[in-house]
């Protein structure tokens, strides 16, 4: 699409024979268009959608464990262990889901804030802290100790919150997810 525009724009300037400078300018504009389109290209849309899906899986997994605590009837083997595993696996990849360019500037609806790429070291630190808590959650799930689970679910949630508070726009600005 952008290539076609580039060719069109380029040949229009060429035909009007306005000289090399205009052709060069047109080439620059065309290049800009190509870059712009590549930012919001289908790959980025898919990436942002898929990371939101995976984050929702993580949220669902943490909720499932929380629900067991609420019900005070904990099904370790069928609920706690597999969901703790999901959180651990997913949080291991989490930091790969935020390549530069996948923020709001992509034009895709995302609640990822530009601060992720401005304070990237801090973002990465928070991501790694969450990985540590997720690994602990996994161990506690295998230990089947209800009190330890309660404490670790809270620690896990705090690690998620710490990152969301700084790097995700508040829910009040969020549209309903479909």
């Amino acid at each position, binding site marked *: 699409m952008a290539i076609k525009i580039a060719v069109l724009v380029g040949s229009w300037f060429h035909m009007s024979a306005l000289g090399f400078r205009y052709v060069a300018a047109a080439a620059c504009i065309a290049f800009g268009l190509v870059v712009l389109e590549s930012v919001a290209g289908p790959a980025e849309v898919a990436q942002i959608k898929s990371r939101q899906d995976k984050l929702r899986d993580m*949220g669902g997994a943490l*909720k499932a464990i929380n629900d067991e605590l*609420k*019900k005070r009837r904990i099904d370790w083997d069928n609920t706690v262990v597999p969901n703790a595993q999901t959180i651990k696996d997913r949080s291991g990849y989490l930091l790969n889901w935020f390549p530069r360019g996948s923020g709001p500037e992509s034009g895709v609806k995302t609640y990822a804030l530009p601060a992720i790429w401005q304070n990237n070291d801090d973002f990465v630190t928070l991501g790694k802290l969450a990985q540590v808590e997720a690994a602990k959650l996994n161990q506690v799930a295998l230990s089947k100790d209800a009190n330890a689970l309660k404490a670790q679910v809270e620690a896990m*949630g705090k690690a998620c919150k710490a990152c969301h508070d700084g790097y995700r726009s508040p*829910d*009040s600005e*969020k549209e309903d997810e479909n």
Partner: protein
Amino acid sequence: MTSTESRMDAALAGTAELRVWDLPVRIMHWSLVIGIGICWWTGLHNELEYHLYSGYAILWIVLMRLYWGLVGSSTARFVNFVRGPKAILDYASTLHRRDTPHTHGHNALGAISIVLMMGLVLAVVILGLFAVDVDGLHSGPLSGYVTFKQGRHLAHLHYYWFTILLWVIALHLAAVIFYFIYKRKNLIGPMISGKRRGDVGDTEMKIAPLWRLAIGAVVATAIVWAVSIGFYF
């Protein structure tokens, strides 16, 4: 005696301090104001631990107010102020006049905003009970009965209906200001002191006994407690 005082005396002749709002109504009103403010702030700042506590407090107050609307003092009771469409239109048609008599208790239009506000607060609270938080840390106590997706949807509706509630509250405040500036009637003072100046011989408020309030408090506390543990006894 100064001339201002004598003019005041003349104006006040034939009037008396009438009791209009009993203590429970006033306390419930102002604690709702504070509670909604706290819920608003803690909700927007993701301080959900405190948000849940203030939310439970609001649930408790609303339950108490509904109960008091059935068995409380005369001006608190719904049967005494909720009117039909004709009475509302009649009242609305006198709104531009400054010489209308003061309604003892809520007027017909004010009653609409009370019912709307109560309904909306209750709706917001119920949605909050089922809301799922992104952090998975402090979801509503009843969120175990819905899926993650449904709970996120309800969290969104919780916020949406809260913004509608804010508009109705704004309307309520605008009406109070209108009465103060245009109709020269101070509605805020009576909601603090419980009394207003009125003509001698106006009907007085019938006060309900406090033991009745105590019964409601026990029941409301039991309900809020059961909700807070998600009915998982």
